[in-house]
Structures are given as structure tokens and as C-alpha cells.
């Protein structure tokens, strides 16, 4: 659809209103973020670098240039991996700037009918409602289990799908529409001496696609001495919304989550998905103009911890058993690393498992290309990043690849399948590997295999 000049003007005004000038002024253009940025490394173009994007945002916010499709494309081309933030010595909050920029054109930008429909469907109809998500989950689960999947494969119907979806369909784990609460209830007591009360944020995708990981998370936490509460009123963290510029929806979801966990009266909020955890920590920024909610958002954000942080603190209560000796490598989740600053904790936990040798993968801190729905919107770059990642993975000769985020998990699994590594490398969420090490010889955590066949 052709964009009229009027709507570009409107977008320009939005930029002037939305961008935070103080944050923009913090960038001193030193260029230290360039080597960390996947899109710069891939293209070698300044405009595809963090420094370039910030310069564009600044010029737009000052009305120095008018927005156009190339500039919007450049903002969409960004993975939102926030590696630039970790590299930036001046503390420029790039993730927040990116969201401001995207929200400047999210609404006025005339989109094609189909894209508008998809945005409404995902951001407004589906993700805010856990029950609808579960419904979709049960449809997929039925498809996977009923033999339809085999039939479709035999008939070659899937060839009609675009490549990323087709590859995703192949590797999607057995979906489960019931979720962790159905299996474990809403309050699970601590084992042994109680440390504190933790609210579990299960994550909307996690709970459907990785129910088993969620169950293991709760078991590990209780074993470590935490009483776990799973509030039923929690909802999607809003990360996908915020990253896509759907700010109002994100605010709405944030409010719901803050209230849900406040009512549960917990000391910590545990997340096992880097992308969700980092978003929960961003709530104070998201709600910065909502005075009445800001205090609550702040104390909520302070209480958010990645499960690896909580487990490491209680490590003495988690005697891991010896596993078959294996080489393990760890792929950072971008948002866990760059958003939550959790870098060493997962590695330390892995090193503490007897039988495991942790080998660092080259560029483990580089985005794998998953980046929310990036692999659907920009398959070329996503696959290019993924294939490089697989090269680095192969070089480690690891038997096991560990991740800490559902998006990364699926993307990496797709990579393993694509590059024919399926028989050499298995992929696990950190929590599932820890559960494996716990369960050996211990009867209190049921076998992982049990959960696989749920």
C-alpha cells in the first residue's frame, strides 16, 4: 500500500513527541557498540548500527529529517537484542529508545490489510488472553497427536508454508494446552527449610510449548527451599507488544501482572525465560508516565529474578548427581544477558554439575536470530545468523546445548535440524538439564521422561 505524505508527516510529529531527548543526548557516538551489533556486522552499514539508528532517531526527534520507508525499515531491521547496551560505555538505554521509535510509527503507519489483521489478531486478540492461547495450543496439540501431522507431511501440504514456518513446524515440541498450574496447583510448599516465597511467572508461550520446563522449574525452586505460588491472574509479559510499538497494550498487561503478583504477596518473582524477565524489569520505564502505578512497578521490577539467580543462591540445597560425562555449551539469551545482566549464573550452575564440562562457544553472546518474531519478519538475516551460530556450535563439539529462553530454544533447534546436527547435539533448557541432574537417584523430582510423555 502506498503511504501518503500526510501519514509520514504524522509519523514525523509522533517522533518529535515520543523520543526521550535526554536519553538520545547520552550517546556520544564513540562507536563502541558497532562490533557488538549483528545487523552492523552483517551489512557493514552505519545506518544498520546502533549509533546510526540513534542518530536517525535524534534527527527525527529534532525534525531535522522526515521519516520515510527506508528509515522505518531500518528500525524494523534491528533485532532488539540489546547487545549494544551491554557494549555501550555511556549507558545509553537502546532498548527503550527502540520502543519509543517503534511506537512512533506503529499506529500511523498504513499497513497492508493482512499485516493489520495479523497485528490485531496476535497483539490484541491472542496474547492478552491466556485462555485463547491455550485453545490454540490444544488445536496444535491435536494436530500433532491425532495423526494429522503425519498426514499433512505425507501429502506435502506444508510446502505451501513460507520456509521459516515450515521449518518451525518440524521442530515444534509436543504442545500442551493445560499448563503448569493444572499439574501442580497454585501453591507448592518448599521442601525442607523455607527460604522465601516466590511467585512463578510462567510465560504464555513457555506454558504451552514448554510445560515440562515450567514443571521442572517449580520442582527445582521448591527443592531449593522456595515456596512457589502461581497466580492465576497473570498474563503475557507484553514484550512482543512493546517491541512492536504496541505500547498501550503493553501497559495494560503490565498493570495486570503487577496486581496479580502483589496479591500473591511474594518476595521474588521468578522467570525462566530471558525475554519475559527482562520485560518485567522494564515495567517502571513502561509506566513512567503513570504516577499512581510507578511505585508498585518499581518494587515489582526489583523483585524479578531469573530462575538461575534464585537457584544459585540456594545451591547448597541442590546436590546435583553425576551425569554421563558430556561437553555442554551455553548460548546466552540476549535479553537475559543484555536486559537482566544475568551472564555468569547459568554458567556457574552448569559448572557445578558433576560430569559436565562447560565449553564456551565463540560469540555465545551474539543473537541467534530468533528475536521474538524476527525469524518470521526477516528470514534472510535470521537464517544467516543462525547458520553462523551453528558453525560456532559445531566447533565446540558439544553434546548438549543449553539455552534459557523459548524463542532461542526453538530457533536453535531449527538450526540444529537444518545443519544436520540432530544426532550429535541435543538441546535443553537450563532448567531441564538441572532437573536431570537432580532426579538421578532422587525420587522427589519425577523423571523428565515422565513429563515428555504427558
Amino acid at each position: 500500500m502506498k503511504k501518503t505524505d500526510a501519514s509520514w508527516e504524522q509519523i514525523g510529529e509522533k517522533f518529535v513527541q515520543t523520543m526521550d531527548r535526554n536519553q538520545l543526548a547520552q550517546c556520544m557516538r564513540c562507536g563502541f557498540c558497532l562490533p557488538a551489533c549483528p545487523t552492523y556486522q552483517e551489512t557493514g552499514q552505519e545506518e544498520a548500527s546502533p549509533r546510526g539508528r540513534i542518530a536517525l532517531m535524534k534527527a527525527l526527534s529534532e525534525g531535522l529529517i522526515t521519516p520515510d520507508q527506508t528509515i522505518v525499515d531500518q528500525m524494523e531491521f534491528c533485532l532488539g537484542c540489546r547487545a549494544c547496551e551491554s557494549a555501550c560505555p555511556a549507558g545509553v538505554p537502546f532498548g527503550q529508545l527502540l520502543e519509543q521509535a517503534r511506537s512512533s510509527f506503529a499506529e500511523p503507519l498504513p499497513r497492508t490489510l493482512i499485516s493489520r489483521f495479523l497485528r490485531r489478531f496476535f497483539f490484541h486478540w491472542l496474547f492478552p488472553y491466556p485462555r485463547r492461547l491455550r485453545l490454540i495450543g490444544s488445536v496444535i496439540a491435536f494436530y500433532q497427536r491425532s495423526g494429522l501431522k503425519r498426514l499433512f507431511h505425507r501429502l506435502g501440504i506444508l510446502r505451501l508454508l513460507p520456509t521459516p514456518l515450515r521449518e518451525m513446524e518440524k521442530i515444534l515440541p509436543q504442545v500442551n494446552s493445560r499448563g503448569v498450574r493444572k499439574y501442580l496447583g497454585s501453591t507448592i510448599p518448599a521442601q525442607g527449610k523455607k527460604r522465601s516465597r516466590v511467585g512463578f511467572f510462567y510465560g504464555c508461550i513457555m506454558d504451552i510449548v514448554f510445560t515440562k520446563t515450567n514443571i521442572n522449574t517449580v520442582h527445582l525452586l521448591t527443592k531449593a527451599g522456595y515456596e512457589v505460588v502461581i497466580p492465576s491472574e497473570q498474563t503475557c509479559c507484553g514484550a512482543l507488544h512493546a517491541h512492536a510499538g504496541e505500547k498501550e497494550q503493553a501497559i495494560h498487561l503490565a498493570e495486570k501482572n503487577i496486581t496479580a503478583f502483589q496479591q500473591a504477596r511474594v518476595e521474588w518473582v521468578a522467570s525462566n525465560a530471558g525475554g519475559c524477565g527482562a520485560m518485567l524489569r522494564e515495567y517502571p520505564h513502561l509506566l513512567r508516565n503513570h504516577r499512581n502505578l510507578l511505585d508498585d512497578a518499581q518494587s515489582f521490577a526489583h523483585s524479578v529474578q531469573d530462575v538461575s539467580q534464585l537457584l544459585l543462591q540456594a545451591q547448597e540445597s541442590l546436590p546435583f548427581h553425576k551425569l554421563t560425562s558430556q561437553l555442554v555449551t551455553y548460548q546466552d539469551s540476549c535479553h537475559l544477558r543484555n536486559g537482566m545482566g544475568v551472564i555468569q549464573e547459568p554458567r556457574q550452575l552448569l559448572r557445578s554439575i558433576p560430569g559436565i564440562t562447560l565449553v564456551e562457544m565463540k560469540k555465545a553472546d551474539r543473537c541467534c536470530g530468533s528475536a521474538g518474531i524476527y525469524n518470521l519478519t526477516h528470514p534472510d538475516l535470521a537464517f544467516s545468523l543462525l547458520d553462523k551460530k551453528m558453525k560456532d556450535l559445531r566447533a565446540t563439539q558439544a553434546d548438549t546445548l543449553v539455552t534459557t529462553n523459548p524463542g532461542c530454544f526453538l530457533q536453535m533447534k531449527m538450526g540444529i535440524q537444518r545443519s544436520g546436527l540432530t544426532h550429535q547435539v541435543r538441546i535443553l533448557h537450563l532448567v531441564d538439564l538441572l532437573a536431570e541432574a537432580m532426579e538421578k537417584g532422587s525420587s522427589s523430582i519425577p523423571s523428565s521422561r515422565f513429563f515428555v510423555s504427558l
Partner: protein
Amino acid sequence: MLPSELKEALQKVVGPDRLRDDPSACLTHSYDATPLFQKMPDGVIYPKSTEEIQKILSIASHYELPIITRGSGTNLSASTVPITGGLVMVMTHMNQLLEIDQENLTATFQPGLITQHLHEQVEKLGLFYPPDPGSMQISTMGGNIATSSGGLRGLKYGTTKDYVLGLTAVLPSGALLQTGGKRYKDVAGYNLTQLLVGSEGTLAVITEATVKLLPLPEYRQAMIAHFSDLDHAASTVSEIIAARIIPCTLEFLDQQTVQVIENYSQIGLPIDAEAILLIEQDGPKEAVLQDMVRMEEICKTQNATYVQVAENEEERKQLLAARRNALSALARLRPTTILEDATVPRSQIAPMVREIRRISQKYDIQICTFGHAGDGNLHPTCLTDARDQEEIERVEKALAEIFATAIQLGGTITGEHGVGLSKAPFLKSQVGTLGVEIMKGIKKVFDPQNILNPGKIF
């Protein structure tokens, strides 16, 4: 936007994708790491070979189109800001390391090669390329050569100019100039290689370079010394040199700088010390250990309040990382960070630092000073806000006075960043009218139409 005829001619050379003149591309090449300067070019071009550059330059000559050669755009003198418009030529696509010659101990590469990549590759072979500008993780070798970059190791090993042996460069006419080669000695006529080193893209476009390498030093050790008095730190520097020790780095940090770095990286620096010296020595293990003991003694006799020798490689790296992040950590205090590089003879460091303090108080400007004390290269850094016009005027006055003081003390307005645009007004007071006339004469021989980086240096 480029005129269509010109655009067509250039597109014939590089194709449509590597020539851009839309707002997004132009805006993102309107700046470099220098605060307060910005100007849009008319277009951006990404060449991939020497031949393409030859063709681009002969087209540029024909149309009298200014060419601003750009590496990673990290220079601190606005040297790549296209002040007269024109075409920014980005060299980062030409980034191949062509050869490491282990017999002649040289490396040959394209100009877009990232400095750190060169370091990594040669060090794998037990070789060493010493120049290490603070920006080496992203600066290009072409940028390093065109500004004759320094770094932390300048005192003992010299700077980029001491390593460049040979260059291939394209003149504005499109002609190819070869200077020097893999030879350490060569006095055939004027030293054109050195003329191009530090020429800031105003004489020719460098398309290939050969530098000399050294054997990688066997051992390194670092130490830190705290001082409650600035003069004690300065006299320590003089005493170390007087004792005939040349450490590979001898870095000075004033109190404000220390506080900011500590805040940023939390490595246990003392935030109450007046000054800190960071000293590193490399070489054969025996000799290094001996030097460290002697330097430790000198620090103590010069009233250091605390001396710590790094215990292991990890600690050594941490101490140096602190220094490497200095400028960047400073950037957190105020929105705008103006980093200068006034340089004085080593013996004048204490008077210079004292003068900088006086000037900072006189104009009520926050200035943190750190730098390469061993070679007298200081970095007085103004922390300010570009949006505050009144304050910026005071900053400009303070800087002018700092430059004047440096010259008075027998120093220079720029030790390693180059003149570019930001220091062009001060060049005459540094090199005199005759000096400027000769430089302009040289420029005319290389670039009679004044199309290579016009408006820079003078």
C-alpha cells in the same frame, strides 16, 4: 542528493546497492565521534577494490565532487564530517588481511581492517603490532594510519607512524601511488610514506598498507600507585624515566576520572586519591620483574600512598581495562564529552595539569584529566551539555586557553587525534605561517582541485 548524471556515472562503477543518497544513508554519515559537529553529505559510496576507487576518484575529479574517506568514523577531530558536502567513501568493505610475512616480519592489509583484528591475527603467530588506540575494537587501520594513532604503549613502542613501511594510495586523478615496501631502510628521495601517515584523507586515499611487526613480548606485569598529591605523581614519572626505565605504559588519571571509572566498572579503585599512575612493563620475565621492583621503590620514595602490583593476568587486564574505558565512563556524567589531547614534553606534565585545573576553575567547567603521562600526552576532558549554548561558549574559551598553554610549554595542540575540523583554527599558532604555507603547497601537488576532504587541517 546527487545530480543524476553523476549518480549514473558512479553507479556504473559500484552498482545501485553500494551508492546511496537517501536521507537515511546521508544522515548516518553526517557525524563522527566528535561532539558538536554535523553536516549532511550528498551521498555515500562503499567501494570494494582499489580499481573501483581509482574510477570513483577520476569521476569525482571530473565533477569536482568532494570525497571524504571514512573508516569507522571514530576520530575525535571531526575529520570525517563532510563540511562542504560531497561523497562519503566508506572503506569498511575493504577489510582483508592480505599477508603476514613471517620472514620479513610485516603485515599487509586493506585499509578497512579493524585494528583489533590485526592484533589478534598477528598475536596468534607470536607477533606483535604495538599501536593500541583506545578505540581499537572498532577503528580501522586506514583511520589509524591517516591520523597516525597513538595509544597506551606509545612511550616505549612509538605510534602508528613508527610502523608503517609502505602504502598503496589513489590520488584524486585516479593515479596509483606506491610508496615504500617491505624494507626497513629506504632513503630514496622524500619520505612519501610518512607524508601520507597522518594526512587525514586530504592527500590520497590509502587502499593497501604494509606495517612492521615485532616479536610478542614474553611477559607483562602491571602495577598501580595512588598519590594524595598531584606533584608526587608527576615527580614519580620523571624519576622512573631518570632511572633509565621505559615502561610500556605509564598512565595518569586524576581524581575525578578515577571516581567515574570506579563507578562504572567497580574494580576497587581508590576514589579519594588525588592521582593514580598505572604502569605496565613488558619484555623478558627477569627484566620485567626487576623493573617492577625498582618502580615500586620509586613510587614509595615519591610518597605514593599505596602501591599494588597485579598478581596475575586477570588482575593485570582489569587494571588496564579501567584505563581503556576511561573516556567512555566519563560520558555517563554529562550528556556531552569533549575529549582533547594537548601534549607537552614529559617534564612539563605537572605544570600542564596544574594549568588545566586553573583554567577549569576560571571558566567553571568540569574537566577530568587523564592520559599517557609517559609521553606527555594528556586528555583533558570537558564534561558538558551541547544543548547549553552559554556553557559551550565557556568550554570553547577554556579549550583555547588550554591549547595556548600547551604551546607555551613547548607542547602541541594535538598529540594523536589530528587537526581535522575542530582544531583547524589553532594550527597556525602551532606550526606558524610558514608551516601552514608549506603544508598547503604539498596539498596542492597531491590534490590541485582540493576535492579530498576539503576544509580539514587548514
